[in-house]
């Protein structure tokens, strides 16, 4: 079943075309990775899906329903949550309060929201930090908090924007394990990641974008062998050099 469909999206910023006629489908239960060189339009894509940016043309469908015109909070309420690449904590609130705010998306009572938040903090490994203010967290803990907030809204689809990048290897492994854990709960994941090892091992499928256009799509091992992908990442000269050698 297709849970999220991005259909012929074009997004311009002035003269710059950030996304051009981009289409892909997200199947329920999978982890779909989005990769592409810096400036390829990955974060813009997330901003368009969650309505922080309006596309010039194209539509976004969530469970068959057109959500292109909705406001960001409505998209979250429908069950599509996101994290931000540059983490956006509620800086002066405690870690627990931060996650509680996410839990209020589906729980009206304070006590139950606290319970839910504590459960998530336990799972993500931030439980000891629950009474600290979000500003005092390290970057690794901030990324975990970012994920915990989004998970607390109880999404069906979660969009993760670079949650592994910037972590040390132990933290990265924890995070990868937690993302697998999310998938096991039946949540569908759309993933942007710079850390290749992470995205190759996590993703069931990968979409590659370059200058806002889709240049390749398929299983991780197929995509990594696609000459167009190698060219986008390493440049044409690399491929020419390789041909000359062989």
């Amino acid at each position, binding site marked *: 079943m297709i849970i999220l469909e991005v259909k012929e999206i074009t997004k311009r910023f002035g003269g710059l075309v950030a996304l051009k006629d981009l289409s892909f489908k997200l199947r329920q239960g999978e982890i779909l990775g989005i990769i592409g060189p810096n400036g390829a339009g990955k974060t813009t894509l997330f901003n368009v899906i969650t309505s922080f940016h309006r596309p010039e043309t194209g539509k976004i469908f969530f469970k068959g329903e057109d959500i292109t015109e909705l406001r960001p*909070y409505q998209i979250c309420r429908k069950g599509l949550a996101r994290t931000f690449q540059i983490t956006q904590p509620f800086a002066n609130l405690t870690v627990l309060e931060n996650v509680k*705010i996410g839990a209020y998306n589906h729980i009206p009572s304070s006590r139950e929201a606290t319970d839910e938040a504590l459960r998530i903090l336990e799972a993500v490994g931030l439980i000891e930090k629950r009474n600290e203010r979000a500003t005092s967290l390290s970057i690794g803990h901030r990324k975990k908090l970012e994920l915990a907030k989004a998970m607390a809204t109880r999404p069906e689809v979660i969009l993760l924007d670079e949650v592994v990048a910037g972590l040390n290897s132990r933290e990265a492994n924890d995070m990868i394990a937690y993302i697998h854990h999310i998938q096991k709960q039946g949540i569908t994941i759309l993933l942007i990641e710079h850390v290749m090892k992470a995205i190759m091992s996590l993703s069931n499928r990968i979409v590659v974008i370059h200058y806002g256009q889709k240049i390749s799509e398929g299983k991780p091992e197929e995509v990594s062998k696609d000459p167009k992908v190698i060219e986008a990442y390493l440049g044409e000269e690399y491929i020419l050099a390789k041909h000359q050698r062989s």
Partner: protein
Amino acid sequence: MSNIHQKTWNILLIVVLGGLILGLPLFLGKYYLHFFIMIFFFAFLGSAWNILGGYAGQFSFGHAAFFGTGVFTSTLLQIHAGVNPWIGMLLAGIAGMGLGLFIGFLSFRYGLRGPYFALAMLALAEMLKLIAIEWMTSRYPLGITIPLRGDSLLYFQFRDKVPYYYISFLMMAGALFLTRFIEVRKIGSYFKAIRENESAAEALGINVFRYKLIAMAISAFLTAVGGTFYSQYYLNIEEESAFGAGISIEILMGPIIGGAGTVFGPLLGAGILEFLSETTRNFLGGYSGVHLMIYGAVLVFVIIFLPHGIMGGLQETFRKITKGQTKT
């Protein structure tokens, strides 16, 4: 366990303080009664401001707009339509809320943030003041006096200050309870989320526009209710003390100094400011304006050294102490 423990302490504290406060008028003269009435009154107005400015983070520099609306609504209704001032107080609140929703809709719909919102509010209050001046000069050049009816609870008029003391205290206590009620619930968490980071709040399913309007409605309602208390306390109103920028500043000074976004910040701030203003007036009364200079100095001090106000500073210290204890 510790939660229950804290609750008993809180109740004990409330009972002791409450008894003290309720008994005080027996021992106080007129002068000190007025002093406490002003503390309660500005703590009430500060709490009203605090909900919008301190919790939801929408810094209003023109709450006199709502205050003046309250002052004029109940007074004019009383004089021209014979509306009882208690009912007038409720209608004043509704009028203030209506104005708040109107300016809130315009400001928040078009994304006015931070200083731009503050200035829009200031402009609104100044506009209303000019309208009031224009309207009053031909009709009430000496201000409007509410007809005296002697001591009457029904007409919200008293020769003695004691009833005003209790009324202002009840209003303040109500505002503090309301603040606490909001603070520990979903609505309070949503206000704080909006204050801290609007995009993140929106991404977590919060209808930021709607919650800003709710904060505005509560804040404007209470502030206008305060306006009616003011009318009934002085029984004489004019434009400057209703819509003037001085009122806007006095309303927000308390919570800023005491601690915006905390329940007791506005009360603490109002207490400190009234104390300062009275002592400077008593000791330096000969030099007019000195108390304003001291006000300014205190404000500068607090903003530099205690950016979250005195309550915020205390909470931070407390947090550090308890953190140190759990670690060792």
